[in-house]
């Protein structure tokens, strides 16, 4: 059985809230750093599921409003695209 308390925030990389809070408490209070330590926002959804929740956690910890926090970057191609579709036009 899985742990009843497991509270997965980033479903792409299966990262739980406790893990995120641990690194915020260690001083990593921006999304860019948490992304690089935990891979949150690096999966196929690029943070659509976890970004807002993580920014709220950072806000709670630092006292800064969410609007003042750096939200991190969403990279092209935004939605995953099959490699052969990108390559075709060039052939």
């Amino acid at each position, binding site marked *: 059985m899985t742990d009843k308390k497991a509270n997965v925030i980033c479903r792409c990389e299966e990262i739980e809230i406790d893990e995120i809070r641990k690194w915020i408490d*260690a001083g990593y209070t*921006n999304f*860019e*750093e948490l992304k*690089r*330590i935990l891979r949150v926002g*690096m*999966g*196929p959804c*690029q943070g659509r599921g976890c970004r807002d929740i993580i920014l709220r956690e950072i806000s709670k910890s630092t006292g800064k409003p969410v609007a003042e926090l750096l939200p991190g970057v969403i*990279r*092209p*191609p935004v939605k*995953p*695209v*099959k*490699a*052969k579709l*990108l*390559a075709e*036009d*060039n*052939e």
Partner: protein
Amino acid sequence: MTIKTADVIVVGGGVHGASTTYELAKAGVKVVLFEKEYLGSGGSGRSAAGLRQHFGTETNLHMAKYNLQVFPTLEEELDTGMSLEFTQWGYMWVAYADSVLAQLQKNVDLQKSLDIPSVMMAPDEVKARWPYLCMDGIIGVAFCGDDGHINPQTLTLSYGHAARRFGATVKTYCPVVKLLAENGKIKGVVTEDGEEWHAPKVLLSSGPWSTPLAATVGVDLPVYPERHNLLITEPVEVFDCPMVLCLDDGAYFKQCPNGTFMFGRDDQDEPHTTETTNSAKFLEGVTTSVLKRIPALSGIRVVRQWSGPYDNTPDHNAIIDWTPVEGLLVNCGWSGHGLQFGPSGGRVCKELLMGEKPFVDLYRFRLSRFAENDLFFEPAFI
């Protein structure tokens, strides 16, 4: 205004700045690191992070060998809770022309003389060992099975995290706007928010941003940025695909330990900028080139692309040297192979800053080689 002081100031929180800060803090030096954003936000974290011992000069090989001695136990040593994702799935240089193959053979002969386990392999041997690679037109490869991959983000962040544990001050989102010198000696730095820090020794390790900072104290560095692009795919089953570097059009690819694939391709027409903008031309070119070599990946999805700057010098080798300003050391200009030199770069800079003899002869890395027209030619650069 209160002026703060340290024994050593490090400007730039890429892997070399972070590893030097770690080494100094471990040795008990009062060190402060300034980074304009987060650690690794410049070239380091954006690197393809290949680890290799395929070089063609003794200086680079001695340092590369040291790097590969450090990496296997570095996660344990830094002990931060971050995974460095170190793997040794090998690194392959693929030749499509006789002159290229002859140079690879020369490099491998030199590597073997230094006890590096590199080998030359014929096309049929490549086909037998990696049947999924489609290497039409290749005439041979150089391969080193001890080479591999590391996570460049956690590597840089871990060095900084461990440095803090040893008492270093690591200031992120704190850009240095100028260096301060007086009577030919370094004095300190000024940050964007107007803080002044003084130290008798300063290390400038800011990649392509080193050039404008050095200019603030009259030091001319021949280091300029050049944009390079990468992409990462969704994860697939892990089959330990090594780093494959194709020396016809500069395309390369490898599997990362979480199953994703990284594709890259060098392009002479890329802009000389530190702007991390993206290019659709890259996506088309790199997927076309890589899918020819590994057709099994045609259905894989591309998740993200990004870019980052190389810090190029005229001979594509680093500058590790004291500048004409007394007390100002530079370590930059790695030209695209610098991430993997974090361990050795950190060690030699710590040795120089503490007045010790560096463990390798750094003569080839000297700054004056450009003025003397005595360039450091490395046959194995990408």
